[in-house]
Structures are given as C-alpha cells and as structure tokens.
C-alpha cells in the first residue's frame, strides 16, 4: 500500500522518536590504535587474587609453541580463568657460529629463530594458582621454556617499535 510512509518525522506528535534505542546503549569508547594498556588489577594480598599474569612460552619450534599456547588458552577458558590477551612476541633470530678444530675461522653452524607466545590471565585465585601451575607443567612439551610473571609496563613497551628521534628530542629537552 502506498498510503503509509515511514520516512517522515512527525515532530509535533507524541510518537516522535519512537523506536530510538541507541541512546540507551552504554557508551562505546572508540578503540584507539594505542592498545589500551595498564589494566592493573588489585594486587592486595588479603584479596587472594593475583593481578595480570603473563604466561610466556619460548621455543625454537614454532608449531609446538603455538599449539601449547592454544592448549593453555583453552585450558584457562575451561577453568573459567579470565584471559585478557593472547599474543605473540616478535621473533628473535640468532646466528650460531663455532670455531673449527683446525683453524681460527668461525664457521656458521645454524640460524635459529626463537618464538615466544604470551597468554595473559587475570583474577587467578591464590588457592587455584598452584594447581594450574601443576597442570601446565605436566603437559609442558619438550624444548618449550615456560615463564610466568606479573605483567609490567616494560613488558608492554617491549612489543612496541622504538622511536629514536623522539627519544633524542626528549633527551635534548631534559
């Protein structure tokens, strides 16, 4: 039927604005590219909850460390531990040289790439922490180095690119 129009706004009628809902939704903060950091949690002892903990898994074997990271993430999901982030740290490349037996020349032996994956969890209860540690340790694969530490700003900054010009200028000012 062509009689009913839906595009006109009858501003004098009391039904003006019927159907509006966006003003009822909570304000969504636009996510800046800076990756909101500093989600510091209560680290009080009597609250028996740890703050942000980083589970860092390092290895030369990329597939192994990725699968282990996936396993840890799934485990935390199953145990209803909040996982803040699960990211990869930049890859480090090392060139291994060794000295030949007869001679003084350094021989290139291998080029090794070290991969690191991080799973960040928070609100871990103090009674459950040793159990989680035990489970993760029992399923730790060969060659994967596990490190669990608290999340700090330096850890976050190590993921960002260095800005030498900015640092130079800041040094000049101070």
């Amino acid at each position, binding site marked *: 039927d062509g009689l009913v129009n839906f595009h006109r706004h009858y501003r004098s009628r009391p039904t003006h604005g019927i159907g509006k809902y966006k003003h009822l939704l909570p304000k969504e903060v636009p996510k*800046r*590219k*800076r*990756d909101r950091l500093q989600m510091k949690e209560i680290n009080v*002892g009597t609250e*028996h909850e*740890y703050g942000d*903990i980083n589970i860092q898994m390092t*290895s030369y074997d*990329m597939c192994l460390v990725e699968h282990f990271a996936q396993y840890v993430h799934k485990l935390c999901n199953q*145990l209803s531990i909040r996982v803040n982030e699960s990211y*990869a740290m*930049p*890859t*480090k*490349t*090392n*060139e*291994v*040289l*060794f*000295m030949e*037996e007869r001679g003084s020349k*350094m021989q290139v*032996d291998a*080029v090794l*790439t070290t991969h690191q994956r991080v799973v960040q969890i928070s609100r871990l209860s*103090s*009674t*459950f*922490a*040793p*159990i989680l*540690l*035990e*489970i993760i*340790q029992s*399923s*730790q*694969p*060969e*060659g994967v*180095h*596990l*490190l*669990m*530490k*608290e999340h700090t700003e330096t850890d976050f900054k190590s*993921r*960002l*690119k*260095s*800005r*030498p*010009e*900015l640092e130079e*200028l*800041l040094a*000049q*000012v101070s």
Partner: protein
Amino acid sequence: MLAAARGLRAQPKKKKKVDPKREQAQKDRVKKKIKKLEKAAPELIPIEDFETPLKFSDSNRVRSLPPLSFEETERRVLLMKKWSLYKQQQDKAEKEAIRSLVEAQQEALKELRLESEELYQAAVRRDEELFPFERDGPNYTPPLPGYDPPEGKCIDITKVYTQ
C-alpha cells in the same frame, strides 16, 4: 674620548637579548617536534611468524595427489576414531586430576580452619614468591656429563624496527 664612548654604545649587545630569545625559540621548536611525534600512536613490532614468505605465494606449484584406495581410507578413518578416543580419555583423566586436586585442597583447608583460624588465613593469602616462575621443558636427550663443546658464539641478527 667621545668617539670611543660612541663606539662602545654603537656595538650591538649580543649577550642580553638575542641569546635567551634564540634558546627559547629552539626549545619551542623542539617541543613542537616532540608534540608532533607523540601524536602518532606507537606501533607494534610486526611479527615475522605471521607473514608468509613470498616464495610460497606462487600459485603455479600445486600438488596433485593420487586417489586413495578403499582400504587406505578405511584405515585412516579408523585411526582417526582411535586417536579421538585416546585424546578424549586423556582429557577426561586431566579433568579428573584437576577435580581431585581441588577437592583435596578444599578438604585440607576445611580441616585447617577447624584447627586454627590464623593458619587458615595465612594459607589462603596469595604467595608472593610464586611469581616469577620459570621452568625448562623436558628434553629427549639430557645433556651429556663431561661434554666439551667447541668454542663459538651467538650473534643476534633480529631485524630492528623503528618508527
């Protein structure tokens, strides 16, 4: 004498006016540059693991596999079923282990509470020495005792990214 005094007066005074002005102007310029650089958001270092090297994006090389026989497909399906059953048992065992650990812990804490409230409170508090926690994975072949490795060194050739 008058000419000498005029000469002194005519000399432009370099020290009082121009130097602080120049310094101020320099500082302003530096601060402006800093502001401009700080406006740009810091970027994350790109991870080389997630970038496929170009030589693998060549679509000319396509593998053509031969068709599998019936026995082979059957064998594979049955193997997959056995593997999934094995994994399920493994997962169940793990869940059971977690459950029993938590149960035992809760029972112990209950008993401790009945014994003394103070000790219970101290036990429930979080452990500061737990983190940082480090552990090396198990090895297929443990290091040989008395092995004399050849001399050498490791050089870090990671690419450094700057913004």
